[in-house]
């Protein structure tokens, strides 16, 4: 068969080439060349993806697996290759990753202009694209794990990009370690897969699942739970979401690319990719749905009181990822992926717009010191508005379609589904509320920069400036996508993905759906109204509300003290165990003790023997004589016993 040439490896290898060039030589190259390299390779990568998409549009059949993939690990009968597979799901993901990725690269050229380590930043960013495309294109779990860990690494490097800031280093470390907890689950899941299927290849596992319907629910549940642990780590869900808010220490474009649009959706992608297994385990599905819903609600509540603009967006990301989990959990994989895509558009836009604001205010991130930026930064304001409307779920913005699809699917998912839908709807209200709170605080009203900066007189707004075109262009493109991204409609989207994600839980058209949609928009409008009430006018209402709800507010501002609880329950005990139980009891008492005992015994016997070696000639002679006498006596005794000679005596004695 004449296989279409897709050059799949190039999609990953182009950014890697960019990483190598900038990483090895970037420090010595002028900025212009660094930027060219950094932009060119993602663009090439996007071109390859776009070409593939065009071919699919032209009727090419998916999936396409690149033949002749080089072997990676081969031991015994176990074999894993660098196998890239393109199917509908990965195509969608790739378009998002390389497309949004390229836009954010473009934006970064403006945003990072004055930063030290410009080349380093772009090297890392290209490295991230490399790993992310590997993750998406991987044809087996192990290769996916490569991307999985790799994006974690890129994320670590980029979060810690400002190497002079301790908090950045801490945040990077925290992100990596927490992700490692998830990776532990992923690893165990892979081992279970090997144990049960003897392969890690997606396709072969799928075939085996189809061929052996007998694979018990318990096994599938176990595997899925392990994979879920992995997914919660990467996609920042309860219980492992704690790294994402801290990850905002990184440069803002990084937050847009990695911690909003692409990397954090890897968990959702993985679940969709493995849905054949999840379908076998209702328990695991339920766990996914509940975790997702709980996270969505929980993060939304915290987002309401955050004052750092990026942290609001971070919690919002966690919350939206929760929606995607909910979608997966109720079997609406295509809806989840749909939301993943639209979310990538509007959340990237939100972050980039926030970045533009921060850039315009020379690094200010506290919303309490913003306000009134609408005039100073019109493009940023209008694009941001589009994004806010999209995330809140207003018709006809992108977020409306995808969120609606998820909620509808949840609504039809039995009793539990109804409950989840209720929570999801409340979350939508909260989402709308906190997004408009951000919108009001940032762009409307008066500039509050002066109120907190004694002595400087004028606020930020006075000298706030609009960002350069190279930053605004991505904003505009993303704004267009945020508006139109959902128009494709869930039915067509689900139909496209069907070969991969299976028959979607059919959303029955008609009254129910219409009712749900209207309800969702109403809820979003309510959220806007509340936000307007509290923050739109003068903030007095906000202050009053804050007064009356002080305990809850404290709880939310403390982020439920989850970090502190983890520290107290996990980090401290581990350190305590290591330091005292292992360090003192194990190392000092047992290991060192035995070492001391040993050297003590040797030292003592050495001391005794040293006395013997008095240095006195006559004493040596005496011992010599005694030894000679003893040997002779021994030989004589042998003779008396009738043995023949000395050698026989020795033999006799030893026996």
């Amino acid at each position, binding site marked *: 068969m004449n296989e279409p040439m897709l050059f799949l490896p190039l999609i990953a290898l182009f950014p890697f080439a960019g990483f190598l060039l900038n990483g090895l030589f970037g420090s010595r190259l002028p900025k212009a060349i660094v930027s060219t390299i950094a932009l060119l390779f993602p663009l090439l990568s996007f071109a390859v993806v776009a070409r593939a998409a065009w071919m699919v549009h032209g009727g090419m059949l998916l999936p396409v697996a690149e033949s002749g993939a080089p072997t990676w690990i081969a031991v015994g009968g176990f074999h894993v290759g660098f196998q890239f597979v393109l199917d509908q799901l990965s195509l969608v993901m790739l378009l998002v990753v390389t497309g949004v990725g390229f836009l954010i690269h473009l934006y970064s050229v403006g945003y990072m202009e004055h930063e030290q380590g410009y080349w380093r930043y772009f090297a890392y960013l290209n490295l991230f694209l490399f790993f992310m495309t590997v993750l998406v294109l991987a044809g087996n779990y192990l290769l996916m794990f490569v991307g999985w860990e790799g994006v974690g690494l890129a994320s670590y490097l980029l979060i810690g990009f400002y190497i002079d800031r301790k908090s950045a280093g801490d945040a990077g470390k925290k992100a990596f370690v927490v992700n490692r907890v998830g990776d532990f689950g992923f690893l165990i899941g892979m081992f279970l897969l090997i144990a049960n299927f003897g392969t890690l290849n997606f396709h072969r596992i799928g075939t085996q699942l189809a061929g052996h319907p007998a694979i018990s629910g318990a096994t599938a549940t176990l595997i899925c739970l392990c994979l879920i642990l992995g997914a919660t780590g990467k996609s920042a869900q309860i219980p492992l979401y704690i790294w994402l808010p801290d990850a905002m220490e990184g440069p803002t474009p990084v937050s847009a690319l990695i911690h909003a649009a692409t990397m954090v959706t890897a968990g959702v992608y993985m679940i969709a990719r493995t849905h054949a297994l999840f379908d076998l385990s209702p328990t695991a599905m339920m766990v996914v749905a509940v975790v997702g819903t709980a996270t969505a609600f929980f993060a939304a509540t915290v987002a309401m009181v955050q004052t750092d603009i990026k942290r609001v967006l971070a919690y919002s990301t966690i919350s939206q990822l929760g929606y995607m989990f909910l979608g997966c959990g109720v079997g609406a994989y295509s809806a989840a992926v749909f939301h993943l895509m639209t979310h990538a558009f509007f959340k990237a836009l939100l972050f980039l717009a926030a970045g533009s604001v921060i850039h315009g205010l020379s690094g200010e991130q506290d919303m309490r010191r913003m306000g009134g930026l609408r005039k100073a930064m019109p493009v940023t304001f209008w694009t941001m508005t589009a994004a806010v409307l999209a995330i809140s779920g207003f018709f006809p913005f992108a977020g409306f379609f995808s969120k609606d699809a998820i909620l509808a699917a949840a609504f039809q998912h039995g009793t539990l589904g109804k409950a989840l839908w209720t929570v999801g709807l409340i979350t939508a209200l909260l989402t709308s509320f906190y997004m408009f709170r951000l919108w009001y605080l940032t762009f409307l009203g008066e500039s509050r920069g002066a109120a907190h900066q004694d002595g400087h007189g004028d606020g930020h707004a006075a000298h706030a400036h609009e960002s350069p075109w190279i930053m605004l262009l991505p904003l505009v493109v993303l704004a267009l996508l945020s508006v139109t991204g959902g128009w494709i409609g869930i039915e067509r989207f689900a139909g496209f993905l069907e070969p991969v994600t299976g028959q979607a839980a059919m959303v029955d058209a008609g009254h129910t759906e219409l009712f749900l949609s209207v309800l969702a928009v109403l809820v979003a409008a309510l959220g806007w109204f509340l936000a307007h009430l509290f923050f739109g006018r003068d903030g007095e209402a906000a202050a009053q509300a804050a007064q009356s709800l002080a305990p809850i507010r404290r709880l939310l501002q403390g982020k439920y003290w989850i970090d502190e609880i983890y520290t107290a329950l996990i980090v401290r005990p581990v350190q305590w165990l290591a330091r005292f139980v292992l360090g003192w009891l194990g190392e000092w008492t047992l290991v060192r003790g035995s070492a001391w005992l040993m050297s003590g015994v040797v030292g003592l016997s050495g001391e005794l023997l040293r006395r013997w070696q*008095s240095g006195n000639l*006559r*004493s040596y002679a*005496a011992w010599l*004589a*005694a030894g000679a*006498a003893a040997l*002779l*006596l021994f030989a004589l005794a042998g*003779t008396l016993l009738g043995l023949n000679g000395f050698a026989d005596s020795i033999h006799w004695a030893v026996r």
Partner: protein
Amino acid sequence: MHLVLFLIFALFALAGAANLLLQKHPINSALSLIVVMSSLAVLYLLLGAEFLAMAQVIVYAGAIMVLFTFVVMLLNEGREEKTWGSHAARVVGFPAVVALLAVLASAILRAGRHYGMVSLSDGITTTQDLSRVLFRDLLLPFELTSVLILIAILGAVALARKDDGNA
């Protein structure tokens, strides 16, 4: 005749050895050692080892003992002092010596029953016999001893030489 000669010179040897032990001054000890060695030379002769007897007189009684007396005189070391340096020498050493003697004697006495007698009429090992073995079968070891002695001479010179102030 043999018995008489043996008894006389055995007695000389033992007396000389005893005197070596009893004398306080090294020079007296050295002279008694010469007595022992000379008596041994006669005993060698009795055992039919004529070359060894001569060598004993020349090498031992002559060369080595002269060296000893020279050194004693050179150093002019007086009577030895009474010191009790080593506990072990008395506690371990002397019982060991007794045991040694007892073991050796009993072994010799037990084995000696089978040995023959030594008399004057026994054949003499001539120097010819000796040299035939020495220069034919054992030429290499013999030549090696010459190297050994050469090294010993060099060593002795190096050791006994006065260092020129840089010690």
